[in-house]
């Protein structure tokens, strides 16, 4: 009659009880004895009823156990920006003349030197030619032209890396009541290292230009500014 | 039936399924102009059941093959015999087309019938398509292009250029 009714105890509990009667529990207890001894220090304990010694575990067990099981954090394949592999368009090789499309120097034709670890391109005007200093540019803001300089022999200073170009953060001085409305902007200064490197690199780039077959027009080309004329569409043009 | 794009020429072979009484039934073959094999077979049964006492239910198709034009780079005149159902009755017709292949001729026939008679492909039955000898061509419009020295200008050509000002101070160039 009650075949479909709910059981008061779970099947596990019932089986457990049954096994006790059948003496199976004893066998299980025997297995438990064979367990490896817990790691720790054995200490003698006073008192008759305390079993004379006990093991003090080497590592304390946590006092708190989570009541809920928490989802495990999955291993992510994503990497931080530092670990990204930075691809470079095949049209951009050292010595390529690039047209800068954004930023302060937009429209200028500059010489590409190398790619830095962050993926940004290191370029120079050269500074004496068109006023574009040694500078980092993102390759998406650049058109690569077919014109190339042979700059294999150029030696770039090793300190030209991303940290070199990073803005140096200066701590703001605590505000005083007096200079609340005073602008305390410091004038931008160019570090002496950059000045030195600029002269060094420009000299080498200008030398490379002098070896180009069209060297007479080349500096003029770098000086000129790119713009689209009437009926010129960049997607149809060859650069 | 629908005429999508250019039709193809199929040769379809079929017969009644062999039975105890007729172990070797006669085979019928039919030239079908259709879009694909599927509709070619369907068209085969459509025509065969009106001609013979055979249905698709107890018939079988032995072969359905694409027929290529022997000389697809020579201009020929094709005569097309057809039957079509208009709003007022049934008509038989003979039409001529100058084309490179028979399939192209039938396609332009369907288009022509749609244009001139508002006939839908479903109400047209192609009876026969045959290449016509030059001296047996009947239609004057077709005849004039068969003359040895056909020459005509292309008068008043308009170049519909996109992105060009609609109004201009120059006269347009209409000869090119």
């Amino acid at each position, binding site marked *: 009659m009650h075949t479909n009714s709910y059981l008061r105890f779970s099947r596990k509990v019932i089986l457990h009880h049954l096994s006790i009667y059948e003496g199976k529990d004893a066998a299980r207890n025997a297995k438990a004895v064979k367990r490896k001894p817990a790691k720790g220090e054995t200490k003698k304990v006073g008192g008759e009823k305390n079993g004379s010694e006990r093991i003090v575990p080497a590592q304390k067990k946590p006092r708190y156990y989570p009541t809920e099981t928490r989802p495990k954090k999955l291993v992510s394949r994503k990497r931080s920006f530092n670990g990204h592999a930075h691809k470079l368009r095949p049209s951009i090789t050292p010595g390529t003349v690039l047209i800068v499309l954004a930023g302060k120097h937009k429209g200028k034709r500059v010489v590409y030197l190398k790619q830095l670890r962050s993926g940004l391109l290191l370029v120079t005007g050269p500074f004496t030619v068109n006023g574009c200093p040694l500078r980092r540019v993102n390759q998406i803001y650049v058109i690569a032209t077919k014109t190339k300089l042979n700059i294999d022999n150029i030696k770039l200073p090793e300190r030209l890396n991303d940290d070199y170009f990073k803005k140096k953060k200066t701590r703001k001085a605590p505000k005083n009541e007096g200079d609340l409305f005073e602008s305390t902007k410091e004038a931008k200064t160019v570090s002496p290292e950059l000045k030195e490197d600029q002269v060094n690199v420009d000299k080498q780039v200008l030398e490379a230009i002098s070896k180009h077959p069209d060297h007479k027009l080349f500096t003029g080309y770098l000086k000129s500014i790119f713009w689209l004329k009437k009926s010129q569409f960049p997607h149809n043009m060859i650069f | 039936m629908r005429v999508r794009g250019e039709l193809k020429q199929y040769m379809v072979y079929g017969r009644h399924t062999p039975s105890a009484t007729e172990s070797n039934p006669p085979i019928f073959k039919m030239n079908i102009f259709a879009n694909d094999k599927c509709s070619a077979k369907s068209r085969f049964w459509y025509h065969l059941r009106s001609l013979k006492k055979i249905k698709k239910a107890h018939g079988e198709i032995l072969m359905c093959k694409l027929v290529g034009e022997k000389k697809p780079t020579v201009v020929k005149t094709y005569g097309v015999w057809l039957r079509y159902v208009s709003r007022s009755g049934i008509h038989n017709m003979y039409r001529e087309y100058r084309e490179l292949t028979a399939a192209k001729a039938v396609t332009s026939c369907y288009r022509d019938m749609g244009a001139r008679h508002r006939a839908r492909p479903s109400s047209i039955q192609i009876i026969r398509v045959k290449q016509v000898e030059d001296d047996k061509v009947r239609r004057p*419009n077709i005849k004039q292009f068969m003359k040895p020295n056909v020459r005509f200008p292309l*008068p008043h050509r308009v170049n519909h250029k996109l992105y060009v000002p609609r109004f201009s101070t120059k006269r347009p160039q209409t000869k090119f």
Partner: protein
Amino acid sequence: MVKLDTYKLYDRVVEVGRVVFIAYGPDRGKLAVIVDIIDQNRALIDGPASGVVRKEIGYKAINLTRFKLPIQKGICTKALKKVWAREKMEEKWAGTAWAKKLDSRQKREAMSDFDRFKVLKAKQARTRLINEEFNKLKASADSSKTSKKSKKAKK
């Protein structure tokens, strides 16, 4: 009464042997010959020298050139190639202003950014020379005028 010959008004007509320039479609920019006329809308063309496979084409897709080859209607591709070579069609076409214009346009499209700059500079140099020469002539013309005027004033 004078009968007006329509065909004399047109120097380019659709006929067998007419060399055509393909303006639209996959064979755009190639030369071909009308081998046969299909009807008032289409012709059969063939261009063995320029890589146009024998095919039908609508008149809207072609432009007629002023050249005509002496061929028979429906001539085979092989024979057409011979006639094409014999008539030196390539040379004749290359000599036309039309072909030159196309050629220069293609060259201009193939120019790189630096090439464009070089052309700009060359053009500037040319106008500079012209202006110098022009100013010299102008100056000499002016001086002669003023001298004449002064003579008149003296009189």
